[in-house]
């Protein structure tokens, strides 16, 4: 042991020394004094960028991905702890203290891919630190490393049962060679002690005691409170405002006219007010009189879009997918063609925590000395860094970014609109400013889940087999719209599983911003396609499950190794499982009660759901139970995984029952919960979830259990009543919950 003379080495020196800095696996370093014969260390030891072992035995693990309720702050550290051999109760989790993708990897979250994309990195981090602790143990116990094991935050010698705690070994462990990435051996699933168990999320205590640190709870000395008024029709330019009068109102410190760049996801024209409380600026805002130039502002109209959808001709649409020969399939007189028209509305993200951001801009002697400290609720810190540079000329070293826990996001907090407004108010007032949007701001200024229409034809051959699919998708478009939102997606089920497929697109100019909303595209395409497949099965007089299994065909992975590609073996697995667990074909049901099935594949997840629904004579809907079968590979946190599936199902139901955003003359018509019904506890169904823990890499669950919900319920309503649901929300068809 005396061979090891320890001294503090800076991170930079360590990097130079080791040359290890690739693929996000950057081993940071700092040296505490060494443990001697079991004496505790005097300070914490950082084994790599994600892991610090403290002298009191606590193990700090950083979570690099923002937390918005998807549970990633618990599940990623569980992976690290598993490979490390830590005892979960010794683990403390903190959000990474800075945004540095070279050090921490992606640091963004979305698309339910955070888990999948971090799975190997987290295992590498845990296993690397474990190997270094084992190496330290071998030196201290003077035994071969191979005779040691890491478990329960201890390095134990199997034969003699002698052990040293991680804390005792941490200092020495830092001096061990960093194992080559290729040499790491990950634990076998049967040896897992943490993964697959249920852990309450790491912030539970803070949440239940009211000290959970959401962006909206940010407190900074000298902080002012702010709000920001924009034109109700997106794109309205400010002409004038009575800010002098507003400045005189109680609790108001100042008010400003702000010119934006005309991009809704960056900064729009508006009036900012700062004051001594959120309420005082909200109150002052009621007295604000703004003259807007709306000549170039949105004139978006849902009713115009509806009319367009009724009249637009397929011949005028543009083919996006064309496989086989759909015309011959339709033209074959032996085949049967079924046609339907589906409709689904715009919906809001409705994050319960309204949009907010706290910014403190300090002016330097020159522009390159300016500094911005920001408390940022976002799914994507690195994207904000890019924006800060492109929009404000602020480089990384001029930014201090605190990523805040989010009260829901569902895809919403990916833009920089609410962020730039806070920065503008701080720049002008010279103070830290917490900007808070009202509920109305949050609903009017949303980037909505887009609504649309599908005219769809299915072709059945004489044996009742689905041989053709011809879909005419009618969607909105506007300048700057992200292309992926529109569809059709060629990789979507069932486009990828039918002989003759055509999907074409017509677009209607509608200047209402849209964005990613939990399971983009899939959240509406599943409703259309999986309801229509049920229509076709019924038309053919065939069992829905058997019809679906026939479409899926032989067990195969459409693109082997590609997690985003449908694997029909897994699809068949979840379908058979959900049928069995729900008693799909067996259970005798009362009059007015029905079971409905739906399958969907998205976000690398195979999910099948069965809804058990009753409809009373006066069209009152009772959803008794949803049974779900899910294959996302091995489960990381069982409690978290169940919570995501349960939540996605509740979200899908809440959305389909009564939610609809409409717009007229560019103005959003539904602006608070009194105009936008949400699912309450008294309508919450029982949910029964079954995971098929296959051996594929684990993938995420924030989204994929939502898309099958709506078609499962729609198909159950048909089973119960014989009435088809081809339109959401249900309350527009006279159903009541």
């Amino acid at each position, binding site marked *: 042991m005396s061979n090891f003379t320890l001294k503090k080495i800076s991170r930079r020196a360590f990097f130079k020394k080791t040359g290890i800095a690739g693929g996000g696996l950057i081993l940071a370093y700092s040296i505490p004094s060494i443990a001697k014969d079991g004496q505790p260390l005097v300070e914490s030891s950082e084994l790599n960028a994600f892991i610090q072992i403290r002298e009191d035995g606590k193990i700090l693990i950083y979570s690099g991905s923002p937390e918005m*309720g998807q549970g990633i702050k618990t599940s990623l550290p569980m992976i690290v702890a598993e490979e490390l051999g830590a005892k979960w109760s010794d683990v403390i989790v903190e959000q990474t203290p800075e945004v540095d993708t070279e050090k921490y990897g992606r640091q963004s979250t979305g698309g339910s891919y955070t888990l999948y994309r971090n799975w190997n990195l987290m295992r590498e981090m845990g296993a690397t630190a474990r190997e270094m602790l084992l190496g330290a143990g071998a030196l201290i116990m003077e035994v071969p490393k191979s005779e040691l094991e890491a478990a329960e935050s201890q390095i134990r010698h199997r034969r003699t049962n002698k052990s040293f705690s991680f804390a005792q070994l941490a200092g020495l462990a830092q001096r061990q060679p960093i194992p080559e990435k290729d040499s790491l051996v990950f634990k076998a699933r049967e040896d897992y002690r943490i993964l697959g168990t249920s852990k309450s999320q790491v912030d539970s205590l803070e*949440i239940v005691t009211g000290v959970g640190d959401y962006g*909206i709870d940010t407190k900074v000395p000298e902080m002012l409170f702010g709000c920001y008024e924009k034109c109700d029709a997106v794109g309205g330019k400010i002409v004038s405002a009575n800010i002098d009068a507003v400045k005189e109102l109680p609790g108001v410190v100042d008010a400003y006219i702000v010119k934006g760049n005309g991009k809704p996801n960056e900064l729009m024209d508006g009036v900012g007010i700062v004051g001594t409380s959120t309420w005082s600026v909200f109150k002052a805002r009621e007295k604000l009189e703004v003259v807007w130039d709306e000549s170039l502002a949105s004139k978006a109209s849902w009713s115009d879009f509806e009319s367009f959808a009724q009249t637009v001709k397929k011949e005028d649409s543009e083919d996006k997918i064309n496989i086989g020969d759909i015309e011959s399939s339709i033209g074959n007189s032996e085949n049967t063609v079924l046609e339907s028209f589906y409709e689904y509305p715009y919906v809001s993200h409705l*994050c319960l925590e309204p949009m907010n951001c706290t910014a403190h801009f300090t002016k330097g002697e020159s522009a390159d000395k300016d500094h911005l400290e920001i408390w940022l609720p976002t799914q994507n810190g690195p994207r904000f860094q890019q924006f800060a540079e492109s929009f404000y000329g602020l480089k990384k070293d001029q930014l201090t970014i605190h990523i805040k826990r989010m009260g829901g996001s569902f895809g919403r907090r990916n833009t920089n609109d609410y962020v730039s407004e806070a920065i503008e108010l701080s720049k002008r007032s010279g103070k830290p400013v917490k900007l808070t949007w009202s509920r109305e701001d949050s609903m009017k200024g949303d980037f909505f889940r887009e609504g649309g229409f599908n005219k769809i034809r299915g072709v059945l051959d004489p044996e009742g087999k689905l041989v053709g699919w011809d879909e005419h998708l009618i969607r909105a478009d506007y300048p700057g719209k992200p292309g992926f939102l529109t569809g059709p997606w060629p990789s979507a089920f069932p486009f990828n599983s039918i002989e003759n497929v055509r999907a074409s697109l017509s677009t209607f100019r509608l200047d209402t911003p849209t964005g990613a909303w939990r399971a983009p595209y899939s959240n509406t395409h599943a409703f259309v396609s999986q309801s229509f497949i049920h229509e076709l099965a019924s038309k053919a007089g065939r069992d829905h499950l058997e019809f679906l299994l026939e479409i899926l065909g032989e067990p195969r992975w459409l693109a082997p190794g590609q997690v985003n590609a449908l694997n029909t073996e897994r699809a068949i697995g979840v379908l058979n499982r959900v049928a069995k667990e729900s008693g799909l074909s067996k259970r005798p049901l009362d009059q007015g009660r029905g079971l409905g099935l739906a399958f969907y594949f998205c976000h690398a997840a195979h999910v099948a759901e069965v809804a058990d629904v009753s409809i009373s004579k006066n069209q009152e809907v009772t959803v008794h139970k949803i049974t779900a079968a899910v294959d996302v590979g091995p489960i990381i946190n069982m409690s978290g995984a169940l*919570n995501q599936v349960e939540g996605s199902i509740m*979200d899908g139901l809440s959305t389909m029952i009564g939610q609809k955003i409409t717009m007229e003359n560019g103005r959003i018509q539904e602006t*608070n919960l009194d105009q936008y019904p949400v699912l309450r506890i008294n309508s919450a169904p029982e949910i029964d979830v079954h995971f098929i823990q296959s051996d594929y890499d684990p993938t995420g669950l924030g989204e994929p259990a939502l898309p099958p919900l709506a078609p499962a319920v729609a198909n159950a309503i048909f089973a119960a009543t014989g009435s088809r649901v081809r339109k959401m929300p249900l309350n527009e068809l006279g159903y009541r919950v």
Partner: protein
Amino acid sequence: MPKYSFSVNGSKQTVEAEAEMPLLWVLRDLLGLTGSKFGCGIGQCGACTIHLNGEPMRSCLLPVADAAGQNIATIEGLATKKSLHKVQEAWISEDVAQCGYCQAGQIMSAVALLEKNSDPTDEDIDSAMAGNYCRCGTYIRIRKAIHSAAKATSIDQLAREA
């Protein structure tokens, strides 16, 4: 500006505020108690639920003038120095929260329910909790946690009575 005094979690507070300023903003912005959350501002979501003299109340609609002289309890005052409230414990062990933003309000409503009804049925829970919206859809776990808190409370009582 007028001054108002009231008790928050057992300690007297005096604030200078306009009479109509909702208690929610007094708590959050003037007193720094940010556990009670702003969700809708129209009393529809329940994220701002506090207790006024033991009754659950939407603090976003309660003018500070009406709170003067009253006893207010917020989520921050629920646990004692020694231990969490049974409802908080149940919320952790059932891992209720997802984003967690509504849960302070949910817990305040649940505590008020259990104070009146120590063994509520699912229907009792649904009716007492219908004013608290959860965007993440954690309702099944909320029901479970209330039942398990009720059980824990009755075990406590039995222990005391014995």
